[in-house]
């Protein structure tokens, strides 16, 4: 399988006033799978609750207390309570989304084009690599967070909510904090506001994307040569997924706290 074809995904789309708008079918599908998994996990943990938690309920309660700790370290009191559910959902969604692409991979090969899914026939440039590769491989399974659109839109949504909350709390303070501590720091604040969502989204995407590419590269090698590195890297990827979910949640809370936590 050509590495370059790994990033190809089936897409559906339409044209709006000459601008092509495309939706990634794979990412939409895996996003829904992630949502369903989060929901199933939450429902399964909340069934037959007992005062002394054990098993799954215990694990999820630990996770809830963990994310509540993240919120409490940035916000305080009544404000923090409003963000408990949000932080928990965000953490669980990103964590499960990061692990989805690690478990297995579904790649379908097409010999005929399917126009409705934007699956193309074999290109001329595809031939030059080898004689036998007459097919087109499309990925039907990958981590939703390995797609830059998903992570950037999550970061953008968090930034919008942060700005909205800041304006709602006090418009005067919101405007004036751009000129703190000196008025000429305004351009620096503007760069900061743009850089925050961009790096916030790109950090998560690049980590998961680079991890999946490296798994693909290691899978192509012989088992004797790359087997041990593959196992090590898979184990490390689970840790990376956990850390990135944690960092994304922490930063989301920090960015919101910057706008609304002041006295």
């Amino acid at each position, binding site marked *: 399988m050509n590495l*370059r074809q790994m990033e190809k995904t089936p897409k559906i789309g339409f044209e709006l006033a000459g601008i092509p708008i495309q939706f990634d079918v794979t990412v939409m599908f895996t996003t829904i799978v992630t949502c369903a998994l989060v929901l199933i996990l939450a429902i399964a943990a909340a069934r037959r609750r007992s005062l002394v938690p054990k098993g799954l309920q215990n694990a999820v309660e630990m996770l809830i207390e963990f994310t509540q700790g993240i919120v409490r370290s940035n916000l305080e009191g009544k404000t923090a309570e409003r963000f408990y559910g949000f932080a928990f959902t965000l953490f669980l969604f990103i964590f499960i989304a990061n692990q989805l692409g690690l478990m297995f991979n579904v790649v379908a090969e097409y010999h005929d084009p399917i126009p409705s899914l934007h699956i193309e026939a074999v290109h001329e440039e595809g031939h030059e690599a080898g004689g036998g590769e007459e097919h087109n491989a499309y990925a039907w399974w990958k981590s939703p967070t390995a797609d830059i659109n998903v992570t950037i839109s999550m970061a953008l949504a968090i930034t919008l909510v942060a700005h909205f909350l800041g304006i709602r709390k006090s418009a005067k303070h919101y405007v004036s904090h751009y000129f703190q501590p000196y008025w000429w720091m305004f351009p620096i604040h503007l760069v900061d506001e743009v850089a925050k969502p961009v790096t916030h989204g790109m950090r998560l995407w*690049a*980590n998961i994307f680079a991890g999946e590419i490296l798994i693909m590269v290691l899978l192509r090698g012989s088992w004797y040569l790359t087997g041990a590195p593959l196992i090590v890297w898979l184990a490390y990827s689970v840790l990376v997924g956990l850390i990135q979910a944690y*960092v994304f949640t922490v930063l989301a809370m920090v960015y919101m706290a910057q706008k609304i936590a002041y006295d």
Partner: protein
Amino acid sequence: MDLNILAGALLLAFAAITGGIGNALVFSRYLDGVVRQPEVQRTLFAQTFIGIALVEALPIIAVAFGIMLVLGII
């Protein structure tokens, strides 16, 4: 096309160098702290990994773009 691959390779190389140095700085301070006060190892460990994730952000973004350049995706 060849220049694209060279650019991607340079991105990967510099990401490796800078990421290595940055992570080493964070982790060496972590080890210093643990040697001085072994009882705070638990909290320091979590803090260290946040630090590493923050330090690694730009190198890993460079790695992603480098891979995309080398593979010819962009």
